[in-house]
């Protein structure tokens, strides 16, 4: 059997803690003592000795807002080796936070360093409308974060002009923590009779910072839907 066609996809030696392998896969170089919180069910392969602890107590406490009775959506991975994570072909973006802070939509968070500070908030006003509710994970500190995005994301600067930036909550991936956020309904009576524009609610952001948006409005949580 010749593997010449496939050999180009062999992993490169890890050069950083989190790296992309292709566009839709993240490769995490694990070291014991440096744990990772990853989305439950996102592991696709690993090399080495890595242990998984679903629903760890630390996460259960932090994510008590987020959990909906099925347990926390994060698992703790510890050990030595290389861990590969993916979320059904979504693009993965690895970011190293260097004392910066970032808010990530719950469904778009793939993995984060356990040493980062993080907390879960429910976005006010949106929970009632956006179906399952929108959860926001605030992350700060120094370490790595992996986000998913269905399609190449776009980063939009909010501080341009006096107008606010409005985002479809289904397409929102991440935003800078210092932005002011408020829900906005553009819900008219006409949509009750089938004449809606399809855009019923948006999140408005104001202040200096950026918003990351994915080119897809499919916000279903594939990792969770699988159970």
């Amino acid at each position: 059997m010749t593997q010449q066609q496939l050999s180009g996809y062999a992993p490169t030696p890890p050069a950083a803690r989190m790296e992309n392998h292709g566009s839709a896969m993240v490769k995490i170089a694990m070291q014991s003592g440096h744990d990772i919180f990853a989305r439950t069910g996102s592991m696709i392969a690993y090399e080495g000795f890595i242990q998984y602890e679903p629903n760890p107590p630390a996460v259960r406490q932090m994510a008590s807002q987020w959990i909906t009775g099925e347990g926390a959506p994060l698992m703790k991975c510890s050990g030595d080796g290389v861990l590969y994570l993916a979320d059904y072909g979504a693009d993965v973006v690895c970011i190293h936070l260097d004392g910066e802070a970032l808010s990530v939509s719950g469904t778009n968070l793939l993995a984060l360093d356990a040493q980062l500070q993080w907390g879960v908030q429910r976005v006010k006003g949106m929970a009632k409308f956006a179906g399952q509710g929108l959860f926001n994970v605030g992350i700060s500190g120094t370490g790595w974060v992996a986000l998913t995005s269905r399609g190449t994301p776009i980063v939009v600067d909010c501080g341009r002009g006096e107008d606010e930036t409005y985002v479809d909550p289904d397409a929102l991936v991440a935003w800078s923590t210092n932005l002011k956020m408020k829900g906005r309904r553009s819900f008219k009576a006409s949509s009750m009779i089938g004449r809606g524009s399809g855009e019923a609610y948006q999140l408005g952001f104001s202040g200096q910072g950026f918003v990351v948006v994915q080119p897809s409005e499919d916000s279903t949580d594939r990792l969770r839907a699988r159970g």
Partner: protein
Amino acid sequence: MAAPLVPPGTPMTPPAAPVPPPSAPGIPGGGHPAPYGHPAPGHAPYGAPGQAPYGGAPGHGVPQGPPPGQFPPQAAPYGQAPGMPHPGQAPVVPQDGGPGLGVVLEKYKEAPTGQRWTLQNSKLVRVDLGIDGQPVLARQGSMVLYQGKVDFNYKGAGLRGRLVGNATGQEMQLMRCTGQGQVFFAEDSTHIHPVELQGDALCVSADSVLAFDESLQHEVRRVEGHGIPGGALFTLQFQGTGTVVIKTHGTPVVLPVTPTTFADANAVVAWSAAAQVIVSSQVSMRRHAYPGHSGESVNLQFRGAPGNFIVVQPYEV
């Protein structure tokens, strides 16, 4: 402390920082004990002799990164391991920082303005409504982001439009975007292609239209032919001056129309209206009677002057 190539105070080290080659038998100096890789009784240490060392043999190219002083509170520096019994076998990976937030996100920045329609990346298009103040019609719910004062309203097709749309399957659920500002459209991370019409016409399947300028006229066109399930094929024809944004599942192929251009009726997304469409069906009385038939029963043949094109997506609806 060993003399790492990177000064310990350097806040950030690019991952490709020149690090000493692997299997350096103990980087000189260093007073840190190596907790990692110590042969602990009871379990085989990771990377113990006899095991295939993770990350390849020594000299495989695993960068043995000296700690750039990134995690000061940690007592044990990774990648140092001067007292390790088997140097070079550790899965030593730089645990330092990569490029920061701003650098990572830089490549996803918004493309500069200037035109009315700007493709931001292959899956996202931005329209600047302020450039000539003309409203845009878009598929309902396809807005992902907007800046400025933009209003989204239902756009009805009218009674006749609804009847025609219903009968032909070429109906679109549209919304009308008016106001001043920039609107970003995307849907299901499909690939997006703005096509600018300058008085010419384009035939697009209604399912593949994402947005278009209100100045364009569109009507349902019938493709004649025998052997099509359902009697006939219908498409939308856009005409006038303005831009139509079409979406494809996957990277499409744009074929020039030659005397022998054929396309599957289910995969063809758009074609320039000057091309003539002929339905070429393989007529065979027994084509559904046996299991091995090709499944390709209705093909569209395109004919036209050079300069015409068709767009085919790798996805059959």
